[in-house]
C-alpha cells in the first residue's frame, strides 16, 4: 500500500491552535473572534442570501416582479384608503412619496426581523448536522430583506424624481444614518428572537403581531406633526411625546423620509434629529451586543431543541 507524505499536513496541524468548545460555547484562537469568523464565511453568507432570493420566486411566471408587486399594492391601498378616502393626504404635500418612503424603511425592518426570527428553525437541517457560525442564518435573512429594500429604494427614487419630490442633494445623506439605525435594531432583535424562537415557537407568531402593531406606533401613514398636535390637544405631558419620538423606528422613519421627501419643513421633524439618532444608535449597538451574548449562550443546545 503506497504511503503518501503526510509530513506537510501534520506539520501544519501541529502549528494550528486549538478551537475550544465548553459550556460557554465556542471560543476561537484568533483575534477578532466572531467577527473574523463571520467575515471569513462571507462567501457562504452571500450564497445563503442568494438562495433565499432565488428559491423564493422559483417556478413563478412573474418571478422577480413579485418583489415589487406586493409593496406597490400595499402602497396603493394606503394611498387610496387613508390618503384619499380619509383625507390624510390633504394636510401633507407629495403624500405618495411621504407614504412610500415610510413604508419602504418600515417593511425592511419588519421583514428583516420576521425573517431572522424563523431563520434558525428554517435551517434546522444544517444547524443539526454541521458546525457553522449560527449567526449566519439571521444575518442571511437580514441580507435578503436588505436586497428587497434596495430594490424598493430604486422604485422610491424613480417615483420621487418623476414627482419632483426630492429634497436638496445634501439632505439625501440622511439615508445613511437612518438605514444604519434601522439595521442595528433589526440585527439586535433578529439575532435575539431567532435564538428564542428555537426554544419557544410562539416567538415567531408574537413577532408577526407586534410588527403589525408597531407600524402604527411610528409616523408612517400619518405625520409626526399630527401626533404632536394630538398629544397637545389631549393634554399629555411633554415626556409622552419624547417617548413616542425617541422610538428608534420612528427616528429611522423620520430620517429616511427626510432623504426622499423634499416637501417637509423643519416643523415636520423633532429638534436635534441627528443627535437623537446617534443616542438611539449607541443604545442599539449595546442591545446588539447583549442579544449576541444571549444567542451565544442559547446556541449550544440548538441541535437538540429542533
Amino acid at each position, binding site marked *: 500500500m503506497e504511503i503518501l507524505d503526510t509530513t506537510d499536513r501534520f506539520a501544519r496541524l501541529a502549528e494550528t491552535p486549538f478551537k475550544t468548545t465548553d459550556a460557554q460555547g465556542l471560543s476561537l484562537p484568533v483575534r477578532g473572534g466572531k467577527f473574523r469568523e463571520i467575515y471569513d464565511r462571507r462567501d457562504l453568507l452571500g450564497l445563503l442570501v442568494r438562495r433565499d432570493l432565488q428559491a423564493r420566486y422559483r417556478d413563478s411566471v412573474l418571478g422577480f416582479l413579485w418583489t415589487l408587486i406586493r409593496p406597490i399594492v400595499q402602497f396603493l391601498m394606503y394611498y387610496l384608503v387613508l390618503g384619499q378616502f380619509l383625507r390624510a393626504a390633504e394636510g401633507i404635500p407629495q403624500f405618495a412619496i411621504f407614504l412610500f418612503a415610510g413604508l419602504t424603511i418600515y417593511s425592511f425592518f419588519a421583514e428583516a426581523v420576521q425573517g431572522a426570527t424563523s431563520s434558525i428553525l428554517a435551517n434546522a437541517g444544517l444547524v443539526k*448536522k454541521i458546525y457553522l457560525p449560527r449567526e449566519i442564518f439571521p444575518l442571511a435573512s437580514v441580507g435578503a430583506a436588505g436586497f428587497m429594500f434596495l430594490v424598493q429604494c430604486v422604485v422610491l427614487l424613480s417615483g420621487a424624481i418623476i414627482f419632483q419630490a426630492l429634497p436638496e442633494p445634501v439632505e439625501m445623506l440622511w439615508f445613511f444614518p437612518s438605514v444604519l439605525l434601522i439595521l442595528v435594531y433589526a440585527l439586535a432583535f433578529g439575532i435575539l428572537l431567532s435564538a428564542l424562537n428555537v426554544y419557544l415557537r410562539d416567538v415567531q407568531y408574537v413577532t408577526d403581531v407586534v410588527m403589525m402593531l408597531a407600524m402604527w406606533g411610528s409616523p408612517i401613514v400619518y405625520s409626526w406633526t399630527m401626533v404632536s398636535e394630538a398629544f397637545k390637544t389631549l393634554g399629555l405631558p411633554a415626556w409622552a411625546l419624547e417617548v413616542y419620538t425617541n422610538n428608534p423606528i420612528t427616528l429611522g422613519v423620520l430620517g429616511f423620509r427626510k432623504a426622499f421627501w423634499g416637501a417637509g419643513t423643519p416643523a415636520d421633524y423633532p429638534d436635534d434629529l441627528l443627535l437623537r439618532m446617534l443616542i438611539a444608535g449607541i443604545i442599539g449597538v449595546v442591545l446588539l451586543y447583549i442579544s449576541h451574548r444571549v444567542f451565544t449562550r442559547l446556541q449550544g443546545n440548538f441541535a437538540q431543541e429542533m
Partner: protein
Amino acid sequence: MVLSPQPGPVVVCVEGVTKQFTVRKDNTLKERVVHAGRRGRTHKQEYVAVDGVDLEIQAGTTVGLLGPNGSGKSTLLKLIGGIVSPTEGRVMTRGRMAALLELGAGFHPDLSGRENVYLNASIMGMTRAETTERFDDILDFSGIGDFIDTQVKFYSSGMFVRLAFAVAVHTDPDVLLVDEVLAVGDEAFQRKCMERIAKFRKEGRTIVLVSHSAAQVQELCDRGIVLKDGKMVFDGNVNEAVSALRDVLEGRRVGEKPPPEPVKPIEVTRIEVLGDDGERSKVVPVGARMRIRVHVRARQPMPTWATGFSIDTPMGQMVLASNTERLGIDLPAIPAGDSSMDYVIETANFGAGQYFVNANVSEVIDIDTHVLMQGARFTMKGNDRNLGTVAATITAA
C-alpha cells in the same frame, strides 16, 4: 494498521466531557404557562447522553465509535463537531473539519444541482474559486451528468446522495466526521466511497466514524471506542473493540426477558469452543486444531439423536457448517439429562476476526429442532497476511 510513519499531532482532544439534555415535553407558551411551577417538573426530563468522556485523537488515525442504540456515540460525534456544546468539560479541535452527518443536509430542493454544489461546498468551508476548480471532479465522481442543471427536487434519492457525497469528499478536510451514511447508493458507488475513505486515510486525514456495522469498522478503522450509556468502556485495538461491543450487547440482553419458547424434547444448553489442549479458549490461532463442544439436555431417554453446528461472521454470513448426518455419524442412544458431543476442526483456516458458533439438536434430523444461536464466540488471531473470512498461505511467485 497505522499507515503514517509516526503518529501525528493531536487534532481532537475531549476533556472530561459530559452532555446533559433537558427534554421538555411542552414547547409552546400556552403549555409552559399551564405547566408552570411545581407541575412543570413532571414535564422536564434530565438525560445524560455523554458522561465524563476523555479522549485524544491523533492526526492520521481512523477511529470507529461503537455502541448500542442510545449509548451516546452520535452525541459524542456532534460534540467533536462543535454542533452541540458540552455541559461540563471541554472539546478542543484543530484543522479543517467536515462532517458527513447527513448527506444533502444543506441542499435546497428548488435550486439546481450546480447551485447546490456551490452552496454545499461553501457550507463545508470551501471558497468559490476552490469549488470552481474542483467542479468537474465533483461532477465526474457523482455521475450525475447533464442533470446537474436540473432542480434537485427532481433527482432520484440515489442521485441526491451521490451528489452530496461527491461534494463532501472533494472538500479538503483534516478531520472528517462520518455518521452512519456509508450505506447509500448502489454497490458500485459504495465501493467508490470506501476507496475514497481509504485514500483519505493514506493522505493522513483523520476520520471519526460512527457505525452499527462491526465489519465496516473492522475494515476501515485503526482504533475502536465502545460507549455504553454515555461512558467509554473500551478504547483500543479495533478487533478487541468489536468483541467489547459484543460483550456490551450481550450484557444488555441479560437484563431483557428471554422470549418464551415452546419446550422441545431435546435442547442445546450451551456451546463451548475448546483449544487444542482441551481448555476453553476465546482466542484461536489460525491453522490450529479446535474443538466445538455442544451441550444438550434430553427430557427423556431417546434411541437416536442428531446435532449440527455452524460458524458465522458478525455480519451473519456462514463460513462453515456441518452436522452428524453429513458426517455420516449415528449417535448412540441418549439418556435423560445432560450430555455433550464434540466436533473437531483439524485446521481452522478462518481469517482473523470474530466468529460466532450456533448449534442445533433434534431427535430425528430436521424435525422439532432446537437451535441455539450465537452460543459461543471466538477470535481468530495470528494471520495478518490476508484479509477476508478464510486464511490461506499466500506467497508471491
